[in-house]
């Protein structure tokens, strides 16, 4: 039907965020609406900026580690891993086999925990509070496992240069195995409750479509690019630790819509379970930390970049050294920031009710976006 007046006269500007129940953190989106349809959006970030990169320049390499916990606070293990491996890579530190295996276990557990939050908040955004709490119930068990191993529940600082701080406690492996068995049954429940629910499908299929070209041109990574059908995963593309010895698949979506991204995350949790099972069954014996390298000096002029696959995508640390015990420059390639930069493009033409849903499907964590 023809519009009776020009759309310009019906512009409706509204702030969404920073203080909004469903922007996943402090994030502002100035929406321009025509009725309930979004015609333009202007994202605004920086509300959680803590200048981690600058602070790191005044700290020794060891002292930077706790800062990385606080970047992407739902994936602290993954951040530790990326930073520790970037420094090890630059300083040429060897890691024992057992420590490598435990790092994989922890990173994958944290991937599950992070994807659980993402899935749960997807439920919350469509008003399904039940799934959200179910996901947190499962995440709680993972946090318990982390607490037993590292002593922390949110910020772990578990990894050290050259290994991990302490070996797994007794019985940890059995508990982890028990959790995995339990979790696999629970996954089916989540699938029925949310992903397979006709209302949720109606809300998400065909919404917030990211074309493969768009995803590539923005440099997206993680479940966001895989949801668009591009099987890019750092664990396969550029294997680190022991990922090249493990058997796992890279799930991809077809249409690149919100549902596909949620489904990719769901499948990735299954793959993570598979990975953890493999590592647990073949856990090497031995030391986890040969010699703790507390005082690290990286050769002057050496710049090194190392990236791992965080639950949000390619998380990279770039280190440039001036030959002192502190990094001259530490640049964090934050996947959440890169993925979030697409929001303006993909939100156009969607309904107001879908804005939190599309935003949530990019799974931004603002500790990492603003750094």
């Amino acid at each position, binding site marked *: *039907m023809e519009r009776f007046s020009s759309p310009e006269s019906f512009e409706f500007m509204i702030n969404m965020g*920073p203080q909004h129940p469903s922007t996943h953190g402090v994030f502002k989106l100035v929406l321009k609406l*025509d009725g309930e349809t979004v015609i333009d959006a202007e994202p605004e970030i920086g509300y959680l900026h803590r200048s981690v990169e600058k602070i790191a320049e005044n700290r020794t390499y060891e002292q930077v580690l706790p800062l990385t916990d606080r970047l992407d606070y739902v994936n602290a293990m993954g951040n530790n891993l990326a930073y520790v491996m970037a420094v090890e890579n630059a300083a040429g530190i060897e890691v024992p086999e057992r420590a490598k295996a435990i790092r994989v276990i922890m990173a994958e557990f944290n991937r599950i925990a992070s994807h659980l939050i993402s899935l749960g908040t997807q439920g919350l955004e469509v008003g399904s509070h039940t799934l959200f709490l179910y996901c947190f119930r499962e995440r709680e068990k993972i946090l318990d496992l982390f607490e037993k191993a590292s002593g922390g529940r949110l910020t772990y600082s578990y990894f050290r240069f050259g290994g991990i701080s302490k070996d797994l406690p007794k019985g940890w492996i059995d508990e982890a195995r028990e959790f995995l068995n339990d979790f696999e049954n629970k996954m089916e429940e989540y699938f029925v409750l949310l992903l397979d629910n006709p209302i949720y499908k109606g809300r998400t299929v065909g919404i917030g479509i990211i074309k493969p070209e768009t995803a590539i041109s923005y440099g997206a990574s993680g479940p966001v690019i895989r949801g668009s059908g591009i099987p890019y995963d750092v664990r396969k593309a550029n294997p680190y630790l022991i990922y090249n010895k493990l058997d796992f698949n890279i799930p991809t979506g077809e249409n690149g819509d919100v549902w596909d991204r949620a489904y990719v995350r769901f499948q990735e949790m299954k793959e993570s379970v598979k990975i953890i099972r493999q590592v647990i069954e073949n856990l090497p014996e031995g030391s986890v930390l040969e010699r703790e390298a507390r005082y690290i000096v990286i050769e002057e002029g050496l710049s090194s970049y190392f990236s791992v696959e965080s639950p949000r995508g390619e998380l990279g640390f770039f280190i440039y050294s001036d030959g002192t015990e502190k990094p001259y420059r530490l640049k964090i390639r934050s996947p959440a920031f890169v993925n979030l930069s697409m929001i303006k493009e993909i939100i156009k033409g969607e309904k107001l009710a879908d804005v939190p849903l599309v935003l949530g499907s990019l799974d931004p964590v603002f500790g990492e976006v603003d750094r």
Partner: protein
Amino acid sequence: MDGIYFLIGILVFILTGTILAAALVAIGKATSYTRNEPEKTIPYECGELPVVKTKNSKFSANYYSYALAFLIFDVEAALLIPWVMSFKEQSLTGILAATAFLAILVFGLLYAFLSGGLNWE
């Protein structure tokens, strides 16, 4: 004359209900203390000042095509009420007449549907 009494009843109902509700608000006002600060009274827009004032922005109710259909169907439903009331005195003709009436309306709905009028754009 029962209708008049019912009307009185409705009016008294509204009055009593309002008084009861107002009593609740009055109790609330009596037991609370309001400190008026200018910042407090800014309309909520996620913690920021409104980009455009609400009175200056126009919200397009672009479901108006549904509203048009609603008007027609509301009248239709109103016309069906006497038909339902007198159903026992009717023969098959009455039912067929109602069917024809509804069929025309459903065709109209179908037309609106096919011409894209029932899409929220």
